[in-house]
C-alpha cells in the first residue's frame, strides 16, 4: 500500500474541504472493506485518506413523515436489524442481511456499499475499469462468466452494490454533499455505465461525500431474491429487487430491478409492465421473469446468468406477494 496522509474530520463540512476536484487525489474511508483492498492492490493510490467514521451526523436511521432517512455510516448489520426498515422496506433489509459475512456486515457501511468499486477480475488485476486493449474490451472474448448480460458495453463489469437494486425499486434518493452544498440524486441516476476508462460507475463527484439515503414513505410490498454460487462470503450471481403497490389482490404498479447483471442495477420496465394489473401467481411471476430477460445479451460464458436472473425475478415477486401491505 502506498503511504498516505490520514485525515480525521469531525464534520461533513470539514471532510469535503479535504477532498479534491480530481479523482485519485483523496479517498473517503468508512468501513474500509473495499478501499483498503483497493489500496493494497495499488488500484487506488490516494495522497490523502479522509476517514469519515467520526462524523456523527452521518450516523443513524430515522423514520419521519418524509420517509426513512439512513445515514451513510449505518452498517449493514444495523440496516439489516432496523425494525422500521424491515417493516416498510423489506427488500432493503433482506439485501443487507443477505451479505453472508458477519464481519463485513459489522464493518461495511451503506455509503460504502453504494460507492464500492466493481469486483470484475480484469479491473481488480489492473487491466483497467473497462479492460481495454488496442481499443477493444478484453471481456467479450475473455473470462466473462461473472460479467454483464445486459447493456452493449463498453463496460461489461457488473455493479457490485447489494443495496442499489432495492433502493432504485423503492424510489430512494441519495444525498451528496460538496463544499458548494448538497444535492440529491435519484438512486436510479446514481449508478451509471461508464463510457470511458477515466469515468466512474457512480454519479458521485470526486469532491463529494455521500451523506444519506432517503426512502420515500409508501405502502408497498417489497422483496429481494439473490442467487449465489456458495453460501459463505461471496457476491451474488444475480439478484432481483421488487417493489409492488397493490390494489386489492392485483398489482397497481411495480418496479423490478435486477442486480449483478449489468454495469448498473438493471431497471426492467418490461418485467414491471408484465406484472402490472395482474394478481401474483406462479404463472404471472414466471411471465414477468421471462419479460425481464427478453432483451438480455449474454457473453460467451454467462448465458447461465439469464436463467438465474429470470428465476430471481419470479421468486422475488412470489416472496413480496406473501407480505402484508
Amino acid at each position, binding site marked *: 500500500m502506498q*503511504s498516505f*496522509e*490520514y485525515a480525521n474530520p469531525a464534520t461533513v463540512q470539514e471532510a469535503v474541504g479535504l477532498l479534491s476536484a480530481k479523482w485519485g487525489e483523496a479517498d473517503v474511508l468508512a468501513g474500509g472493506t473495499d478501499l483498503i483492498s483497493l489500496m493494497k492492490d495499488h488500484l487506488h493510490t490516494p495522497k490523502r485518506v479522509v476517514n469519515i467514521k467520526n462524523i456523527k451526523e452521518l450516523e443513524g436511521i430515522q423514520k419521519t413523515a418524509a420517509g426513512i432517512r439512513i445515514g451513510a455510516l449505518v452498517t449493514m448489520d444495523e440496516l439489516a436489524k432496523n425494525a422500521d426498515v424491515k417493516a416498510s422496506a423489506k427488500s432493503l433489509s433482506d439485501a443487507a442481511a443477505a451479505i453472508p459475512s458477519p*464481519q*463485513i456486515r459489522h464493518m461495511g457501511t451503506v455509503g460504502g456499499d453504494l460507492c464500492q468499486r466493481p469486483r470484475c477480475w480484469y479491473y481488480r488485476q489492473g487491466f483497467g475499469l473497462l479492460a481495454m486493449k488496442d481499443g477493444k474490451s478484453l471481456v467479450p472474448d475473455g473470462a466473462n462468466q461473472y460479467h454483464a448480460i445486459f447493456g452493449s458495453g463498453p463496460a461489461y463489469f457488473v455493479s457490485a452494490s447489494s443495496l442499489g437494486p432495492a433502493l432504485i425499486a423503492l424510489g430512494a434518493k441519495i444525498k451528496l454533499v460538496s463544499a458548494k452544498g448538497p444535492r440529491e440524486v435519484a438512486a436510479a441516476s446514481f449508478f451509471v455505465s461508464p463510457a470511458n476508462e477515466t469515468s466512474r460507475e457512480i454519479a458521485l463527484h470526486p469532491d463529494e461525500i455521500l451523506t444519506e439515503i432517503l426512502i420515500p414513505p409508501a405502502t408497498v410490498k417489497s422483496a429481494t431474491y439473490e442467487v449465489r454460487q456458495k453460501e459463505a*462470503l461471496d457476491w451474488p450471481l444475480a439478484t432481483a429487487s421488487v417493489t409492488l403497490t397493490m390494489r386489492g389482490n392485483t398489482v397497481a404498479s411495480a418496479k423490478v430491478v435486477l442486480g449483478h447483471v449489468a454495469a448498473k442495477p438493471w431497471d426492467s420496465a418490461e418485467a414491471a409492465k408484465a406484472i402490472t394489473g395482474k394478481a401474483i401467481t406462479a404463472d404471472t411471476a414466471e411471465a414477468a421473469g421471462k419479460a425481464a430477460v427478453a432483451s438480455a445479451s449474454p457473453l460467451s460464458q454467462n448465458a447461465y446468468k439469464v436463467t438465474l436472473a429470470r428465476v430471481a425475478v419470479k421468486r422475488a415477486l412470489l416472496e413480496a406477494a406473501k407480505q402484508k401491505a
Partner: protein
Amino acid sequence: MSSTKDPKTKNAVSRRGFLGGMGIGTGAVGAGLLEREAIASPAAATVAGPGAAPITLNINGKPVSLTAEPSVTLLDALRNHLDYTGAKKVCDRGTCGACTVMMAGKSVYACSVLAIDAQGKPIETIEGLPVDNPISTAFVNHDAQQCGYCTPGMVMATKGFLAEHPNPTLEDVKNGMGGNLCRCGTYMGIRQAVLEAAKNMKGAKNG
C-alpha cells in the same frame, strides 16, 4: 504449546516463542522495544502521516503504543509491530476470516482496518482468551481443525457470533460463521464445536 498465550508471558517454551527467539519473527524481537504501556492518549490530531505516527491501541484490556504509518493495517500492527501473531494473514483482502478479531464488541477483519483507525476502540485478540476457554475447548473436543491456520479467526468469529446468538441452531451457525473459510474443509467439526461452545458457555454464565 498454547496458541492463546499472551505474548508478554514468556513462561513456557512454545513453538512461537522458540521461533521468536531464533529471530525469525522480527516483530517478536522488536516488540520488546515497541510495546510499552502508554503514558497518555495522543491528542486528537486531525491529520497524521504519510510518515510514521504514534498510535495507541487497547488490546485485550491493555493500552499498547506503537509508531507506524497510517497505511499500516491493524493486522500488520498486531503481527509485525506488537507480536500478537494469533490473528493470521491469509488473503489480506477481507474475504477469508483468518485475521478475525473483536473490535468494540463486534467481529471484524483486522486486515481491512487501519491501525490508526482502531484507536479508542477495545480490541480483543485470541491472545486475550484463557487457554481453557469454552470455545477453544470445544474446537479441541470436536477436532475442529486440521492445519489449524484458520482456527484463531474461527474462534474469534465464534465468540462474536455467540455473543449475539447464545442459543443457535445448526442453520444459525452455518450463516453466522459465513465470514470464515477453512481450506481443509473442517466445517462439520467447526459447526459442532460452535454448538457445544454455546451449550457450555450458558453453563458457565459469562463464558
